[in-house]
């Protein structure tokens, strides 16, 4: 019954969160190791997303050296591959024992368009969750460009505005009316964008 012709291959998707204490190169090496593991079980590689560091939506715990370790960030990535359903449990067993993998999930998938998560991000504010493009550190001092074409509002506008406002108040009280007005405009625009989203959600 172990003949390879009897069972058809199934497409699987393995997604994972690696320990955020790893370096970026170590994380991608770990992905290579996973792909080797898949290949050792006669799996065929289809596509992948290289792990990148991202904030988790909530705190996760993972036992490392008999201790509960908490994680607020991790390297997220995924691999799509094709393998005989008999061999998938072997991969599952190995991954469960790896303490550097905070969490993983193997699901049945299909060939087709791949969705990449890298440029999507969750931005938490007091009012709720918003999506924002990943903020690069270089852009901290750069001007905020409001993209009217994108569907989602640039949620990072709100916190950035608050910070600049605070700085403005600290620096000088006068002569900054123009800048404050600009900030107000941006705030109003972001609020309007949020309203649009609400409308979209409620379908009104």
């Amino acid at each position, binding site marked *: 019954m172990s003949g390879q012709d009897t069972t058809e291959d199934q497409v699987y998707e393995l997604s994972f969160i690696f320990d955020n204490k790893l370096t970026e190169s170590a994380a991608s090496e770990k992905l290579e190791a996973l792909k080797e593991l898949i290949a050792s079980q006669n799996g065929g590689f289809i596509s992948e997303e290289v792990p990148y560091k991202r904030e988790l939506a909530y705190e996760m715990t993972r036992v490392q050296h008999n201790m509960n370790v908490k994680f607020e960030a991790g390297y997220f990535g995924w691999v799509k591959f094709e393998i005989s359903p008999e061999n998938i449990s072997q991969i599952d067993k190995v991954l469960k024992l790896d303490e550097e993998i905070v969490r993983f999930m193997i*699901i049945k998938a299909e060939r087709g368009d791949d969705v990449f998560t890298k440029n999507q991000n969750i931005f938490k504010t007091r009012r709720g969750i918003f999506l924002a493009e990943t903020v690069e550190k270089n852009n901290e001092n750069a001007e905020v460009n409001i993209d009217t074409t994108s569907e989602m509002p640039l949620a990072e506008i709100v916190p950035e505005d608050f910070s600049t406002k605070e700085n403005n108040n600290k620096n000088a009280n006068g002569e900054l009316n123009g800048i404050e007005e600009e900030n107000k405009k941006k705030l109003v625009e972001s609020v309007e964008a949020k309203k649009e989203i609400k409308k979209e959600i409620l379908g009104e």
Partner: protein
Amino acid sequence: MKKRQDYFKENSLRVDWKDIETLNKFLNPHSRILSRKKTALSAKNQRAMANAIKRARFMGLLPYVAR
């Protein structure tokens, strides 16, 4: 009143748990899944969407609760 279309059908999208940008449309500010009444999805896509959100939550892409 105009009958509203299924969002996934309209945009010829496939429901994918990694597409949190789309899934976020079907969450309220407390990050709870909206009902079919509000999402206007087909029964099939509503189930797929709910499943996708639960998968995204497990992998830390979406929160279980948000204030």
